[in-house]
Each structure stands twice: as C-alpha cells, then as structure tokens.
C-alpha cells in the first residue's frame, strides 16, 4: 500500500517538476516540451503512431517466433552433442557478445530497406541469448537422470522428449523473456536506420522534423507498449511456474 502510494507520488512529482521546468523556461520547449503539451500531441499522432506501432509489433512478433524456434532448437542440438558444443561454443559466445549494429549496414545492403532486414536483424538479436541460455541448460541437465533413463531402456527420442525437454523449460522461459526486448530493439534499430514504416521510422522522422511533443508522445507510446508486453510475460511466467509446482 505504502509502496504503491510512493510510486504514484514519484510519477506525479516527476511530471510536476518537468512541467515546472518547461513552464519556467529553464529548458527550450523546442527540445523538451511540457507534459501538458505532450498529452494533446498523443491524441494528434494517435492515428499514424498506432499504425506504426502495429507494424513494428508485427515484425517483432515474426522475428520473435523465429528466434525462439531457431534458438531453442540450435541450443538443444549444440548443447546435447559434446563435440559440437566444445567446438562451437566460443563462436556462439563471441557472436552473442559483439555489437550487432556493426553488421547492420551490410544487412541493409544485402536485404534492402523495409520489412525483411527488420525481421532478420530482430531475429539475430533474439536468437543468440536464447541459444546461449538453452545450450547451457542442456549441458547442465543432471547426468544421473540421463544415465537412469538410458539404463531403463529409453530411446534417444524418449531421452530428448521426456528428460531433456522438461529439464530445460525454466531456461527456455528465461530466454523467451529476454528475447522479447531484444527482438523489439532490433526491429526498432533497423526502422530508425533504414525504415520506411514502423515506430522506429516514426520516431526518427519526428526527431528530424523537430516535432518534440509528437516525438515524446510516440516515445511514451512505445515504452508503455513494451513495458506492458514484458509485464504480461512475467505474469504468464509466474502462473506457469506455479502450475509446474
């Protein structure tokens, strides 16, 4: 109760101070508009921005599904074969670690502007964290479980389906939680760099046009959308883990 009150108070105080700063002319309203100027802008841009947001979320969703499917399968494949894991893991870790922005110009050269590079780059962002997590989880599966299953005559198929898969579910969920933000990030970066549609493009063009109230309103819109998605996933995760016991 006290916590909620303090959170609410914080938001109000921050908005109030911001409004005051803008009203007193301590910052140039051309660059930092007051909250009271952003609210009408939110209404003004709602048509275009919602369409842009839908476009971005659609691309991010495709990228996300691809990165989960590919990341989990690659993680299981590489993680469960000892030789493959030993040979590939330094490469995977290196690819996970390097800033992917460096290859973005090249991706755009190859795939052009628009939807395809956005999906590809978003997938690239989501794929590696998921794969690294799943790979580690597969490696750390209790050896005893595997040995017991084997000695009780489990086939390879049963070993994967009945032992490995249930054991790595928490890591897969953790990877899925991480992947969402990464995919969205990747799609937004491409839209800013070489977009023709979508929220990243919308944000970039408001910034280039010095339309600060619209820019802040659009930023708030994307932020709220991504926070909502992440909180919803967290909630789902919690429910699932309670169901698992």
């Amino acid at each position, binding site marked *: 109760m006290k*916590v909620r009150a303090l959170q609410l108070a914080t938001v109000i105080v921050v908005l109030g101070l911001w409004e005051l700063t803008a009203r007193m002319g301590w910052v140039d309203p051309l660059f930092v508009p007051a909250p009271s100027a952003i609210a009408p802008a939110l209404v003004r841009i709602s048509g275009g921005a919602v369409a842009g947001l839908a476009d971005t979320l659609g691309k991010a969703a495709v990228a996300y599904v691809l990165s989960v499917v590919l990341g989990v399968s690659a993680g299981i494949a590489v993680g469960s074969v000892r030789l493959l894991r030993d*040979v590939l893991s330094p490469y995977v870790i290196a690819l996970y*670690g390097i800033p992917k922005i460096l290859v973005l*110009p090249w991706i755009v050269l190859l795939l052009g502007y628009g939807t395809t590079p956005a999906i590809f780059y978003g997938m690239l962002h989501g794929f590696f964290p998921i794969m690294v997590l799943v790979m580690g989880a597969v490696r750390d599966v209790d050896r005893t479980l595997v040995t017991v299953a084997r000695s009780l005559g489990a086939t390879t198929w049963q070993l994967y389906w009945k032992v490995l898969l249930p054991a790595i579910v928490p890591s897969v969920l953790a990877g899925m939680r991480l992947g969402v933000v990464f995919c969205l990030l990747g799609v937004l970066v491409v839209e800013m*760099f070489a977009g023709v549609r979508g929220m990243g493009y919308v*944000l970039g063009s408001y910034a280039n046009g010095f339309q*600060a109230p619209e820019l802040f309103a659009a*930023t708030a819109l994307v932020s709220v959308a*991504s926070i909502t998605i992440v909180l919803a996933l967290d909630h789902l995760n919690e429910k699932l883990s309670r169901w698992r016991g």
Partner: protein
Amino acid sequence: MTVVGLRLALLALLLAIWEIAGRLVNPLLGVPPSAVVPALRDLLLLRSYPDLPANILLTLREIAAAYALAVAAGLACGFVLGMHRLAGRAWGPMLAALYAVPAVVWYPSLMLFFGLDAASKVAFGFLLGFFPIALAVLAGIRQVSPQLVVVARAYGAGTVTVFRRVMLPAMLFTLVGGLRTGLALCVIGVVVGEILGSKAGMGALINHAYGLLRTADYVALVLVTLVMVVGSDVLASLLERRARQWTE
C-alpha cells in the same frame, strides 16, 4: 587439442566459404577476405581514412565519459535503493520496468536535445550502462546476509567497517558483473548512437563507407571497431578477475 584443431578448421572453412561467396556476388555487396586485407592495410596506414586516429580517440572518449557517468549514477542510485527498504521496494520495480523498454526508443529524443555531436552518444551510452549497474548493486545488497551485518554490529563494527568488511565482499561478485555488463552496454550505446546519426567517430566513418558503397573499407572499419569493443571487454574481465581474487 582436437577441439582446438576443429575450431580452427571451422574458422578456415567459414573463411573459404566467405571467399567463394564474396567473389560470386556483386563486388559492391560481397567482400571476400582477400579484399579485406588490402583495405585493412590502407586503413591502418591512414591511406583511406587519414583522420582515423582522431575518430578512434573521439569514440573512446565518448565511451569513457558515458561509463564514468553510468558508474557514478548507477552506484549512487543502487546504494540508495538498496539501503533504504521502502525506496527500494517502490523504485526498484520502476527501474526494472524502465529497463524493459528497448533503450533505442530514447535515442531520437536524446539526439534532439543534445544534438548530433558527442553529447548525445555519451547520454545514450550512459543510459544503457546505468541500468545494469544500478540493478546489480540492488541485487548485490539483497544478497548480503542480514545475520552477518547484525553479528558484525554486535561485535562493535561501525558503519564503514560493516560496509568494507562485510557488505562489499559479499556483494562484490554481483557488483563486478554488473560493472562489466555496464561497460559492454556503454560501448554498444556509443557505437549504436554514432551509427544512427553522427558527424564524427567510428560510427560516422562506418556510415560514410557504407553510404558510398565502399564495402571493403566498411568491413575494415568494422574490424577496427571490433578490436576496440573486444579490447574493452578483455580489460573488464581482467579487472573482474582481480576483484574476485581480492574477495578470496
């Protein structure tokens, strides 16, 4: 031994595939390794980009400034939230929620406010580096067993001693991990900022080479930038090891 051999064989195979594929496609798009080597030589001998050292220096300075700010603010914010129970419970989740926003959405606003020069890159690098540091401090403080603090206090340890001898060693592991992640994200923030819009720095050079379809120069510039990125992480990992030795 065989593993190392296989790793090298894989690398050689990938380079060979890249070489063949790079020669087959349009030379404006595909750059085989054999074309990267002369481009890299020209770059390092300052033939293709004579102002390379100045740009490297600028990027490094942006990273240093962003990281210094992120460490200072992250530590301060983390400790305030960690030491104060109510503040931590109220603002911790808000911080975590903001961390869930793909940070790049803030960048256009930062660019509008700070302009195209170094300040907007510093601000963006700071923003990316701040969150993992603050959240690591917060998580680290939560790891410290309250019993240890109580016992130390019962034996007459003052606040400074408790902090130095009990809390810091207990949370160091998490704290140093956060500092390392923070550095990596500061570097990424600065590079992303430069590529999305700048007049100088490695990102500006990369954009220049890309825009003119000087793809071989672009690959060479990316390799130089990668050396900077990897170098910063190696430095951080050495410091991390030192810190861990100190706790043991």
